[in-house]
């Protein structure tokens, strides 16, 4: 299994632990991730709000870089990048007007031939859960988590073709294999305020606070995410949420790759578990993994 790996800006800065744990897990399982050389930002939300063509051209540029590596499949971990790459591909495949314009901007021909997959999808639908379960060294029993998918991973369904849009279950399935118990909660695809982290911090605090509260009420000991924006809003802003709403949440926000890594017996430091603002090591010790 060989993929052109598109980390995206967050995984190189605020979400380093996601990058570390993904590479560690992929390495252990023998999934080859080769970083696209000179990849550029996908443009994220500001691009599609401001200039439509640019929001297609930036992801297409990256897909073309992947194609030049002779790789027709791209793996990515950031839910927002995944969404932008998928949307761009959708346009390039199905919309000839936009395809022509974008090809003119890039100066190359592209029509959606490079496929994009999220790492979660690769683990479950390419590597297969059954194969994964055979590789597990330490089962993470006694851990109860809320799987939080966020808004961009599954939507829009016809573009991402990933999981159910209202009631996704891939991450829950993965957790069950590891021995972790996922709680049944209603906020799986609620929005955390994502791109407003800097501009409308109040909105983010309210939305993220609601998510933490709901997870807590359902008995989760941690929240598991697949998106760096969700993670930083819930983790970095947790202290501010506590202060503003007079709560005392102490809820670790983990990436699914980190839990997979622990179950595969990878050293917690190699999974970046020391990089969180809300320290998860206490919880991990208490369930007897360390």
């Amino acid at each position, binding site marked *: 299994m060989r993929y052109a790996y598109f980390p995206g*800006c*967050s995984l*190189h*800065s*605020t*979400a*380093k632990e996601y990058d570390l744990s993904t590479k560690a897990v992929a390495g252990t399982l023998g999934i080859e991730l080769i970083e696209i050389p*000179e*990849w*550029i*930002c996908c*443009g*994220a*939300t*500001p*691009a*599609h*709000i*401001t*200039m*439509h*063509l*640019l929001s297609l*051209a*930036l992801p297409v*540029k990256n897909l073309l870089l992947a194609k030049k590596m002779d790789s027709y499949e791209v793996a990515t971990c950031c839910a927002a990048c995944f969404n932008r790459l998928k949307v761009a591909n959708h346009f390039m495949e199905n919309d000839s007007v936009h395809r022509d*314009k974008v090809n*003119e*901007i*890039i*100066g190359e021909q592209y029509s959606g031939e490079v496929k994009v997959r999220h790492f979660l999808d690769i683990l479950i639908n390419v590597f297969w859960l059954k194969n994964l379960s055979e590789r597990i060294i330490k089962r993470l029993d006694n851990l109860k988590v809320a799987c939080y998918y966020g*808004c*961009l991973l599954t*939507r*829009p*369904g016809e573009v991402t073709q990933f999981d159910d*849009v*209202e009631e996704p279950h891939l991450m829950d399935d993965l957790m069950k294999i590891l021995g972790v118990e996922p709680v049944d909660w209603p906020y799986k*695809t*609620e*929005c955390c*305020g*994502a*791109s*407003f982290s*800097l*501009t*409308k*911090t109040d*909105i983010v605090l*309210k*939305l993220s606070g609601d998510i933490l509260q709901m997870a807590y009420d359902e008995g989760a000991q941690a929240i598991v995410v697949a998106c760096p924006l969700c993670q930083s809003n819930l983790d*970095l802003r947790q202290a501010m949420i506590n202060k503003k709403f007079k709560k005392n949440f102490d809820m670790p926000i983990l990436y699914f790759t980190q839990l997979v890594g622990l179950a595969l017996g990878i050293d917690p430091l190699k999974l970046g578990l*020391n*990089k*969180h*603002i809300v320290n998860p090591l206490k919880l991990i010790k208490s369930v007897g993994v360390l």
Partner: protein
Amino acid sequence: MKWFISHDTLRSLFQETLEKDCGEKVSHCYQCGKCSAGCPISFQMDYLPNQIMRMVQLGMEDQVLSSRTIWLCASCLTCTVRCPREIDIAEIMDYLRRRAYKKQVIPLEETEIPLFNKIFLRNIELFGRLYEMGLIGMFNLLSGEFFKDFSCAPKMFLKRKIGIFPHRAKNIREIRDIFKRSGKLAHSKKDRLLHPKLLFLNLFRKFIGKIEKLK
């Protein structure tokens, strides 16, 4: 007196332009309200998403483009996946924001978000990848919130989560070309990326706000 919205009132020029430009059929909206029911930001909006759809149908372009709603929409796509009429409401919000940029309509209340978007894009144009320090510094400076999120910075540095220096892209020329040509094809001039009028208004409002607080 009851006023019935007839089929004629619902055929505005604004609606026609929008349908032609972005391909979404606003005219199909039958005001079920499902989009607003699920919208996570509706509690902060001045008009709910379904009201925006109705306003487009009625041709209320000025009110729509200067509303807070279009800037507060977080592009979470909840409305889009739920609309029973298969209208991509999030895409319409995108379209409306782009139209507002193009027409230089500056919202009176929500100035931070348009400003942030432009600083973000400028950042990508300069470095190829996001340079967080530059983004935060620039945003704080231009929005007049100099010390915002100062308390988070030390934690981020300690955990080595945020770099001091930007990444140097080797293919920066190509990236800038993409920006230039996208702008040309979309007929949006690059110098509009950071409009002085917007900056001035922003700082002015912050200043007034601070003075009022002092009082």
